[in-house]
């Protein structure tokens, strides 16, 4: 067991694979992640780098043909990876909730919105769905900024994307979870609604004091919302630090590449893309998975995978370029 680095969530050496006809997809290759209560963590990275798989692993929702083959997920003092399904059911929804990417698709199309929220509230509070639960539903809809009289009897297809996402937020926060996982909550929405939803989340999380994991590929969204950021690449955590540190002083060359690719008003230099393509996770590159695209590749990069080391207080990087600094810090 690894040392406990955060008091809410500790993920150590998490490996998840998916068995497919093409071969074994090594989706997560030893992810390390930790966070404290009430913290906001952003996970950024390209499509297919394992952001969502990390989230699903925390929820215990990795299904056939996927499997967690190694590693621990410690939530508070509970070891989620060794828990049985019926114990996990009591954690899901109650202590960890999730908001999904496509809010309209994440609601059952044949059921009224009010009933769906009532269902989750009833489950969490262990009550039969009745007047009491519906009073709570109204309160939650109100909190999420919706007119409950109008919304409670609507079907999901009658809602706009923004309204549906508000409903999802109402549902997720109804149990006041310790941890809220938002899996690209704004990707399917247009920009003005994005801002509204983020503002709402921000306000509610401040009010209730939940910890949030925000999964996104939008650096701007992450910068606005998160205290800390974790950058993922091809199933690995490559850099983990405070948001300001990531933006002002990125160390890993993948993070630097990402930031160079972000357009900004007033930027005069050309946008740069990272050369090469995301590796095929059935046959990932040996050693550091970023080495075929890295300008500063060394021999050791091709052989071994660099561990995540602390190069400055609170700034972790998985790269051999900073390996020595990291060792020095660990010793001093």
């Amino acid at each position, binding site marked *: 067991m690894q040392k406990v680095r955060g008091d809410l969530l500790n993920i150590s050496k998490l490996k998840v694979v998916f068995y497919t006809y093409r071969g074994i997809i090594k989706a997560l290759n030893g992810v390390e992640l930790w966070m404290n209560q009430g913290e906001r963590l952003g996970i950024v990275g390209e499509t297919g780098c394992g952001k969502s798989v990390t989230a699903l692993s925390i929820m215990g*929702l990795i299904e056939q043909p996927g499997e967690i083959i190694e590693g621990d997920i410690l939530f508070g003092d509970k070891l989620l990876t060794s828990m049985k399904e019926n114990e996990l059911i009591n954690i899901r929804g109650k202590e960890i909730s999730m908001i999904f990417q496509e809010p309209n698709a*994440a609601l059952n199309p*044949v059921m009224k919105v009010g009933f769906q929220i009532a269902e989750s509230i009833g489950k969490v509070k262990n009550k039969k769905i009745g007047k009491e639960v519906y009073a709570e539903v109204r309160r939650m809809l109100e909190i999420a900024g919706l007119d409950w009289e109008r919304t409670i009897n609507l079907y999901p297809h009658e809602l706009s994307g923004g309204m549906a996402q508000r409903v999802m937020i109402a549902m997720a926060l109804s149990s006041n979870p310790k941890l809220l996982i938002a899996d690209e909550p704004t990707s399917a929405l247009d920009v003005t609604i994005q801002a509204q939803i983020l503002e709402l989340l921000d306000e509610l999380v401040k009010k209730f004091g939940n910890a949030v994991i925000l999964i996104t590929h939008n650096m701007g969204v992450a910068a606005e919302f998160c205290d800390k950021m974790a950058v993922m690449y091809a199933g690995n955590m490559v850099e983990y630090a405070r948001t300001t540190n990531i933006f002002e002083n990125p160390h890993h060359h993948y993070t630097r590449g990402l930031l160079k690719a972000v357009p900004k008003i007033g930027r005069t230099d050309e946008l740069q893309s990272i050369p090469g393509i995301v590796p095929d996770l059935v046959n990932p590159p040996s050693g550091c998975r970023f080495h075929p695209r890295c300008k500063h590749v060394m021999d050791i990069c091709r052989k071994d995978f660099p561990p995540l080391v602390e190069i400055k207080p609170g700034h972790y990087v998985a790269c051999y370029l900073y390996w020595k600094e990291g060792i020095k810090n660990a010793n001093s």
Partner: protein
Amino acid sequence: MLNTVKNIGQKEKIKLFLEQRKPIIEDWKHTYYLWKSTPLAMIGTVIIFIFLTVAIFAPLFTTYSPTEQFMEERLLPPSSQHIFGTDQYGRDIFSRVVYGARIEVWIIFIVSIISVMIGIIVGITAGYFGSAVDEILMRITDMFLAFPRLILAMVLTAVLGPNLTNTMIAISLVDWTVYARLGRAEAMKVKSQPYIEAIRAVGAKDLRIIAFHVLPMSISPVIVQLTLRMGTIILTAAGLGFLGLGAQPPTPEWGAIVSDGRSYLVDQWWISTFPGMAIAFVVLGFNLLGDGIRDILDPRLRR
């Protein structure tokens, strides 16, 4: 919106209600129009309507008992007294055919309920859980499918003992495979939808997900399939009755009546002919109606 406006009269309430339901009413109107423009569906509907009316109001149509025997009136040809004639025991064929309709409705009803229930439970369980559960359940289904339907039904009634209840059980045990396959396909489709993942993330248990979220989404194609298969159910029941494996005399089951008149077919043709025509008529009605429903519900033909 209804509860925001409170102090309005009854008339306005109805008006408001109709206004809110306008799309649904329009949709029904369109369905009615489509039904009217498909003559075959209309004929099917009329036939099934007659069949059901006859079954429900059987005593109003008949003057004779379907089972009482009058030996002095045996083997009479169709006349104004006995419009379908009488059989070898002097029973009125018309009464027997009319009361037979009740038995057929009963068979359809029970067989539909049992077979859809078995089929849906097996199919959705297999589709939802997948992997080993799926393999086992679907191989069992395949075993049932491997036999010709009528043969399997015959074997089952022969084993259970020939009577009406066992016939219904046997037909149900043959018929459920179709619904199992359909239910499985639908459950697999629904299972991978994001809202199932979302509800799992809230912490719903498998039973709840199946009952409240997968089942309602997978039931509609099964219902459509059921209406299409009702004709087949009657045909199987009549076949078993004809072979003496179904309803036992003196129960006026159509297949059994046809079988009764078999040995008199050359001279007293009316005993077998009229119940046979009833079978043909009703099966035709169900098939036409089934085709019509499929056409009307087909979204590509709808607009």
